[in-house]
Every structure is written in C-alpha cells, then in structure tokens.
C-alpha cells in the first residue's frame, strides 16, 4: 500500500474511534489533518488523475467527507456543514462512475435539503431537488425533506411537527428541532391574523408549549402587542396597530410622469 494512503487510513481510524467516543474536539483536529493529507492525492476532484490507487483514494476521501458532514451536525455548526457538503458533492456527481454507490449518499443529500429548508433558502432547495433522479426522489430520506417543504409551504404545520417522530436518520433531529422553532414563529404569525382571540389552553397547545408560564414568556418576549385577559390571548390590538393602507402617491406620480414622457417621445 502507498505510504501516503496508509497514513491517511491510520489517521482516519483514529478519527472514527474518537467519533464513536463523542470526542468531537479531537475529531475536529484530526479532520483538519486528514483534509491537508487529502490534498496530496491527485486522483481526487478536480484532477481525477488515473493513479494506481485511484479507487481506494476516492473511496476513503468520500468516507472522510461523509464523516465530516455528520460531525458538523453533531457539533451544530451549519457553516462547516455547508463547506463539507460542497467538498463531498463531487464524489456523488462526478465520481459516481468510478466508485460504487455510498450507502450514506441519500441520507446526506436529504440532510442538506433539510438544512436549506431550515435556513429558508427555498430557491436553493428546489435547485438541489432538480439534480436528483426520479429514483432518488423515491428514497425515504429525500421524500421526507420534500414532504416537509410541501407541508411547510401549505401551512400544515402539525404535519411538519409530527415528522420529527418519523425521521429517517438520527442526524436529522438537530435540523428538525431548528425547524420546530421556525414553525412556532409561523404559527404565531398566522394566528394573530386568523383569530380574534384564543384561550390560553388552545394557544399553548398550538404554539407547542408544555406550560402556561412558557407561553407567557414567549408572548412577553416575541409578541408584547398581544393582550392577555380572561384566560385568553387577544390579537385585536396587533391588528389595530397594523398601519393603514396609504395611497401610493409617489408611485402614482412616477407612473403618470413616465406615461407623459413616453407619449412625448412617441408623438
């Protein structure tokens, strides 16, 4: 075996051992070293040189980046996730005809879709979705993210929340928890427009709080304009405080002047 490759393999074994022990600080240090060592392999993207150990090198590199992505979820670092995912992506797209498929491919692609959804990068979510084959779209990990986005856009928030119980992979829990926070804010925004008032019991249930105290804290911090009286939350004040629709005079003036200018030019 090539000495460089041997060194990477040994270091990667140490990384995996630390990973199993949940020693994430050590994992991060080892990962940095591994990434530096990987730059010495000419068979990796973007060169894809035909070296004697090309398949082995590509496989181990892909494995390292897959672990890096999962590590970034464990340490809750979304920026690292994005970096590592983009480094991993060429192994799924450009090197797919050189390597056997990875069992981690769909869980990681689904995880990335979930991240884009959490970060409200919906346009990028759909752009990524276009890259997936019809077979990939049938995979439970991808399907989970697609259905979540659909439910979220429709407003079926309870479906989004119940999806936390049916995550296809344990790494999804972190992003699902972040999504729950977003969903709570969405429900609050919809509630103040759709209801005149809600009983504290119903509001607590809707906004996913376990106690009245938590609900009151949330209202105090996020929505001080809501009024609490007679064991109910009244949204009327919030509606009244919404600014009245003004006549867009400046816009109208601009439009009229532009018509005059164009007419002058034509006639």
């Amino acid at each position: 075996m090539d000495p460089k490759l041997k060194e990477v393999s040994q270091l990667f074994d140490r990384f995996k051992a630390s990973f199993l022990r949940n020693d994430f600080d050590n994992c991060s240090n080892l990962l940095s070293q591994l990434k530096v060592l990987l730059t010495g392999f000419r068979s990796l993207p973007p060169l894809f040189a035909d070296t004697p150990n090309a398949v082995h090198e590509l496989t181990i590199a892909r494995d390292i980046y897959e672990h890096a992505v999962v590590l970034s979820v464990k340490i809750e670092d979304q920026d690292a996730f994005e970096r590592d995912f983009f480094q991993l992506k060429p192994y799924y797209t450009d090197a797919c005809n050189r390597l056997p498929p990875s069992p981690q491919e769909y869980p990681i692609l689904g995880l990335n879709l979930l991240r884009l959804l959490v970060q409200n990068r919906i346009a990028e979510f759909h752009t990524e979705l276009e890259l997936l084959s019809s077979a990939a779209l049938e995979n439970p990990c991808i399907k989970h993210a697609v259905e979540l986005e659909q439910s979220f856009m429709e407003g079926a928030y309870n479906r989004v929340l119940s999806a936390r119980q049916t995550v296809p992979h344990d790494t999804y829990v972190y992003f699902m928890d972040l999504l729950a926070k977003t969903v709570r804010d969405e429900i609050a925004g919809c509630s103040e427009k759709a209801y005149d008032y809600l009983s504290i019991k119903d509001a607590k249930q809707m906004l996913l709080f376990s106690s009245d105290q938590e609900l009151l804290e949330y209202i105090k911090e996020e929505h001080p304009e809501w009024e609490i009286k007679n064991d109910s939350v009244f949204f009327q004040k919030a509606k009244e405080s919404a600014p009245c629709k003004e006549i867009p005079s400046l816009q109208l003036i601009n439009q009229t002047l532009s018509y005059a200018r164009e007419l002058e030019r034509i006639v």
Partner: protein
Amino acid sequence: MSEDVEMKDQATPSHSLSSVPPSALQHLKEIASIIETGSYSKEVRRIARALRLTFALRRKLTAPVLSSFLDYVLPPASEPHTRLSSFLPNPKEGDREMEVDSSTSTIQTPAAKHLLPELEIYCYLLVLLFLIDQKRYDTAKACSSASIVRLKSLNRRTVNVIASRLYFYYSYSYELTGNLAEIRGNLLALHRIATLRHDELGQETLLNLLLHNYLHYNLYDQAEKLRSKAPRFEAHSNQQFCRYLFYLGKIRTIQLEYTDAKDLLLQAARKAPSAAQGFQIQCNKWAVIVRLLLGEIPERIIFMHRGMEKSLRPYFELTNAVRIGDLELFRNATEKFGTTFSRDRTHNLIVRLRHNVIRTGLRNISISYSRISLADVAKKLRLNSASPVADSESIVAKAIRDGAIDASLDHANGWMVSKGTGDIYSTNEPQLALNSRIAFCLNMYNEAVRALRFPPNKDKEKENAEKRRERHQQEQELAKHIAEEDDDDF
C-alpha cells in the same frame, strides 16, 4: 472526373438544357460564389444569405453531390479535401456520373484554387448537415470536432457567421450521441475566444449552447452563474435571443422568481418564428405552469392553438384541476400524465402546484360560504391526511395571513367565517393592472423601434455638410453686423 466537371461548367449551356431545373450541385456552386464574393468584399450579409440558401437545399444533399462539390471547391489532395472526403460514404460511381452530367453551369471554377477559409468552413458545415440528416451521428461527432479545431485557428469576421452555425451543430451532434457533458470545457474555451475577438454572434450562440448544456443536466445553479457573469450585448439573431429568453425563463422558474419567468417565457413564445412549433410548445408548457404557480389561470385559447392541442392536453387537464381547486382531480391528472411531465422535466414544478390547488379551493369556498366548519373545508379540499381538521385549520390560517382569502377563524366552534367581498376598485389593483398593461405596450413599441433598420444616411451627411457651411457663413455675417453695431454705439 473533376476535369470533366470543370469543362462542363465552363461550357455555355445549350438551349436544350436551359429548361432543366438547376441541380443541387448547381445551387451549391452558386452559393460558393456568393461566399467568395462576400469574403473578398468582407460583407457578412452575403455570407448570411448563403447560409439561408443552404438550409433551403438541405433535403437535397447527397453523398455524390457533396463529393462533387468538395472536388469543385477544395484543391484535390489538400488536407481539408482528404479529411472531409473521409467523412462521406463512398458514392457509387454511376450516381456521381449522373449528378455531374446534369450539373451544367455558367459559374467559372476558381482558376487558381487557393482555398478561402470561408469556403473550407462552409464545406465542413455542409458535410456535418448531411451526416446528421443521414443519422450518422458518430461520424458527425468526429466531423464537428475537426471543424472546431480548424475554426479555433481562424479569426475573420466573415467566418463568424458560418462558425456560429457550426457551433450549434457541434453541440447537437454530441447531444445526439449522449455525450453533451464532454464538450462543456471546449464550449467555454470557444466562448472565451469569441469574447476576446468581439464576435458577438458567436458569443450569443455559445452562451446559449452552454446554458443548454447546463440545463440538459439540470445544473441550474451553474447556468445562472455563467449567465450573470457573461458579457452583455445587443441581440444579433432573433432565434438565439428567443432561446436565451427561454433558458433564462426556465432558470427563473426553478429559482421561484415566477413573475420574471412568466414575462421571459411569454416573450420567447411570442418572438419565436411561427415555423418553430416545437419551441413554442415548450415555451407554452413552461409558461402555463408558471402562470398556475402565480395563481393565474391561463386562457383556454392557449391550449387550442393549431398543432399544439395534443402536446398541451396534459397541461390543460392540470389547469382545469387547479381552476376548480380539486385536489383529487389534481392527483389524478398528475398520475395520468406523470410520464409526460417527467419527460418534459416539469414534474417537480407540478409537485409545487399542490399548494396552489389548495389555495384556489379555499378561495372558492370562501366566496361560496359565509361560514363553514373546518371539517367541511377538509372534506371539500379532499385532504387525505391523518388529522384533516387540524391540517385544514392551519392551512386556512396561513391563507388568511398571506392574503389569499379574507376570513377569520373561530377555534372554539371550529368554523371559518368569511368576510364580505370588498370592492376591488377601492384598492390599488386597477392601477397596478393598468400600469402593467401600459408598460407591456410601451416595451413592445420600444422593442419594435429598436428592431427597425434604417437606410444608410450618406445623403443626409452631404446635406448636413452643406448646411453646416451655410450656417458658418451666416454666423460670420451676423458676427460682423453685431461688431459694426457695437462700433456705432460708441
């Protein structure tokens, strides 16, 4: 044999032959002379005309005709002649003899066959067209690659017109063999060369080919990055501009920028030549979906254009489901035409439409009922979920928040209470509608003016020079008068 051809060409045609319609070879020779003239006079317009004439001849191209034409245009045993002849199937001698005999001509063979680059590249184009029409795609691929290698070493304005067509068929031949990704690097290099040489027609064509290349593999992100960084210039070819609008419309659709996408796709469909029906169908398919995603319902007439009814049928049924707001009908349509939507690559967009179907259904319910239970809303929308009432409540709440319906919810009683429909004329809607229509008309007018061609203003310049001389004279006299008056004042 080529000598016989030349002798025949030089002979004056007899009266007995004058009634015979000119052969394909004869036409090609005439086109060659147009290209030659265009090359010497550096008139790009002539080369473009030659290409138009060629495409009219395309169906008549045969191996013997092309072989004879190569003998006529290219010096025998020259490298281009040998290479191009190798791409052609060996013609039967008899066929070739007959073709040659019928090709009487008044055109003189180029006496000293010094090879014009325009004619050489034109020969590549002819052979490539023939190979593609004959479905010899692998040979076409080899021929197109050879032509591109040759093109890279040429930098002539008059070659650019032919080159832009060659780029297209180069990409097309690779697409037909399923190797489109292979040439991406080459196309990028060609685009860079075209940019450095200020070959705007080449840039336009290559940019479209690159966009097509990326979109073929659904690489929307890369396509948008390239498009946004590519140099801007006025459109030269209407066809290329239509393609550009279509590709940009597709990119905008995927990026959820539906308003822009709609304008681009409708503009592409409108500007497209009436003969390009396939292109118009594609534009209309995407435009229909974009309009549905915007919450608009396309007019029935769009689906009734002659020659488009069959292709747009799935989209008509889809539109019907969205218009009614029936999820069940929508599901049936997506299942029934699933393969069509997958083939058109619109399946993912149609998945997004479910949301709009629900919205339309809710709007219809809101207009029809002053008060309705959430259970009935779920039933009418046909929400087949685990907890339809809870789902319908949150869906209605979001629709109210987004302004899709004017209603309120009564959680305790489980009702949706609709508010009276307001007077739309008391809102900004009419003004916005008027403005968008006026903007559309003005834009069309401005584009029409920009597209006008004016005769060269040489005569005007002469007049201007004379007038200028007169004006100078008058000014001098006036200055003299003023000076004299000033003196008088003193």
